[in-house]
C-alpha cells in the first residue's frame, strides 16, 4: 500500500484533535485550577482553598433552587417535545396536499437564532403593548392583560413552552428519518392481517422508532440542559431569580457577581452531569450499532 500522509490516520486526525484539545482542555484545566483556589473578582488566585468553593456552591439555596428548576426545565421541554414531535412526524410522513410547505413551516424555528426568538417573544409577551395579549383579548379569551414575563407564576411555564417550540424541528427531523427507515411491507402485512391504525402504531411504528426516540431524548436533554439564550434574553433569570436555571445562575455567578471560584466549581459539577448524560448516549448509540 502507498505510504502517504493521506493514508496516515494520525496525521489526518491531528489538526481536528489538536484544535479541540487546545480550546477545550486548556479552559477545562483552568476551571479546575480556579475551582480549588481562593480567587478574587479579577481572576487572581490567592492560594489553595481545597473544596471551599464546592461547599459554598452546594450550600447556596439559590443553587438548590436553580437545580430543581433545571430538572423541571429539562424534563418539561424534553417530554413536551417528544410527545408533540411523534404525531407531527407521523403526519408529515404521510402523503398529503401541501406537505412540502407544512414541513418548511414546522422546521422554521430551527433556522432562527434562539436569541432572536427569545427577543421577539419578550416583546410579544409584554404586558401592556404585547401582541399576544391583544390577540387573546381580541379573541375574547382574556379580559385583563396578563404580565406574562413579569410574574414568576407565568414566566417559567412560558419559557418552557418556547423551549418546546424551538426543539420540535430537530426532534421531528430525527423521527422522520426513523420513519423512512421502516420498510413499507411491514405496514402492508399489518393491513392484510386486519390491524387498525392504533395497533399498527403500537406494534410496528413505536417499537421500530424506539432507537430514534432514545437518541432524541438524550440529545435534547443535553441541549436543553445547556440552553442559555431563551431565559437570558427574556428575563435574565428574573423576576427575583425565579427563572434561573443552572446555566444562567452560572453566568451570573461568574460575570455579574464576580464569584469566579464558585462559578468554576459549578462548571465542574455541570461537566460531571453532562459526562453522565454522554455515557448514557454512548450506551444507546452502541446498542443502535449492534442492531
Amino acid at each position, binding site marked *: 500500500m*502507498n505510504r*502517504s500522509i*493521506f493514508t496516515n*490516520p*494520525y*496525521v*489526518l486526525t491531528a*489538526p*481536528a*484533535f489538536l484544535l*479541540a*484539545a487546545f*480550546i*477545550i482542555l486548556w*479552559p477545562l484545566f*483552568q*476551571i479546575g485550577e*480556579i475551582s480549588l483556589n481562593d480567587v478574587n473578582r479579577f481572576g487572581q488566585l490567592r492560594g489553595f482553598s481545597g473544596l471551599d468553593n464546592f461547599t459554598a456552591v452546594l450550600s447556596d439555596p439559590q443553587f438548590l433552587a436553580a437545580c430543581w428548576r433545571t430538572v423541571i426545565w429539562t424534563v418539561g421541554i424534553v417530554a413536551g417535545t417528544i410527545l408533540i414531535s411523534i404525531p407531527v412526524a407521523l*403526519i408529515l410522513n404521510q402523503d*398529503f396536499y401541501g*406537505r412540502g410547505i407544512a414541513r*418548511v*413551516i414546522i*422546521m*422554521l424555528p*430551527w*433556522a432562527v437564532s434562539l*436569541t*432572536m426568538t427569545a427577543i*421577539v*417573544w419578550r*416583546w*410579544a409577551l409584554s404586558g*401592556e*403593548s404585547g*401582541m399576544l*395579549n391583544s390577540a387573546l383579548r381580541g379573541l375574547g379569551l382574556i379580559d385583563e392583560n396578563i404580565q406574562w414575563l413579569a410574574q414568576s407564576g407565568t414566566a417559567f411555564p412560558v419559557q418552557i413552552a418556547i423551549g418546546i*417550540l424551538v426543539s420540535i424541528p*430537530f426532534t421531528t*427531523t*430525527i423521527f*422522520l428519518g426513523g420513519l*423512512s*427507515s421502516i420498510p413499507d411491507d411491514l405496514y402492508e402485512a399489518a393491513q392484510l392481517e386486519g390491524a387498525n391504525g392504533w395497533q399498527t402504531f403500537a406494534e410496528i411504528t413505536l417499537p421500530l422508532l424506539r432507537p*430514534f426516540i432514545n*437518541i432524541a431524548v438524550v440529545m435534547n436533554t*443535553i441541549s436543553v440542559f*445547556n440552553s*442559555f*439564550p431563551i431565559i437570558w*434574553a427574556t428575563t435574565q433569570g428574573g423576576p427575583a431569580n425565579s427563572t434561573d436555571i443552572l*446555566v444562567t445562575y*452560572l*453566568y451570573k455567578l461568574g460575570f455579574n457577581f464576580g464569584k*469566579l471560584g464558585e462559578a*468554576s466549581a459549578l*462548571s465542574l459539577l455541570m461537566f460531571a452531569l*453532562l459526562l453522565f*448524560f454522554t455515557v448514557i*448516549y454512548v450506551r444507546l448509540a452502541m446498542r443502535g450499532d449492534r442492531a
Partner: protein
Amino acid sequence: MKISSKLKRSIVSWLILSPLMIAVLFPFAVMLITALKPATEVLRPTWWPSSFQWQNFITMWSATNFGSALWNSLYVAVLSTALSIVVSIPAAYALSRFRFVGKGFVQQFLLVSQMLSPIVLVIGLFRLLVALKLLDNLNAVVFVYATFNIAFSVWMLQSYFSTIPKDLEEAAWTEGATPWQALRRVFLPLALPAVTVTAIFSFINAWNEFVIALTMLRNQDSYTLPIQVFSLVAGRYTVEWHHVMAAAFTATIPIAIVFAWLQRYLVRGLALGAVK
C-alpha cells in the same frame, strides 16, 4: 376515489398541525408587523398599523449599527465554517477508512467535546482569551466556534463517508494514482453533498451563537448580529421596538430561506448520523 381520500387526509393533517403552525408563525407576524408600525404606534397594542412604514428598515440600518454587525456575523460564520470543515474532512476520512490504535479515544474525545457546550466552559474560555490578549477579537471567536463545530462536523461527515465504497479509491490506487490524487479526483467529488450540508449547519450555528459572543465581544464594533440586537433590548429604559424587530427580521429571513430550501437534505443526513 383515491383522490378524495387524499383530500380528506390533507384536510385532517392541516387541521391537526394548525395550532403548532400558528405558534410557529406568530413570532414572524409579530416581527414583521411591529417592524412596519409607525414609531408612534409601536407601544399601542393594536395588531394592524395605520400605515406601513417600510422606511423603518432603512432607518433601522443606521440606528442599530446593522451594517457592521452584519459584516461581523458574516466574517465569523464564514471563516469558522471554513476552518472547521478543513480540519474535519481529514479527521472524518481517517475515522471512516482506517483502523488505528487510539481511534476509540479520538471518537470519545470528540463525543465529549460535543456534549460540552460553550456555556459550561465559558469561564475557562474567557481566561484563555484574556491570557492570549484576544478579548474582543473576532478571529479568536472564529477559532472557538470552529472548535465547537468540529465534533458535529466529523460526526456528520463520517457517517456519509462510510456510505462511499472504499473500492473506488483502491481502484484509483491500482491505476497508479497517488493517495492525494485518489482523494481529490475520486473521493471528494462524491463527498461534496455531505460537505455542503455540514458546512451549512456550521454556518447557521455560528450565525446564531450567543453565549461566546456575549462574553468575548465587549466592544460594539465587534458585536455580531444576535449580540447587537440583544444590546438594543437589554438593560435599556426605552427600547425602539420597531427598529429591534426590523433588525431581527432582516437578520433572520435570509437564513430561514436557505434553511427552508435545504431541510429535505437534513432529514436524511441527520438520521444517518444519529444511529451510526
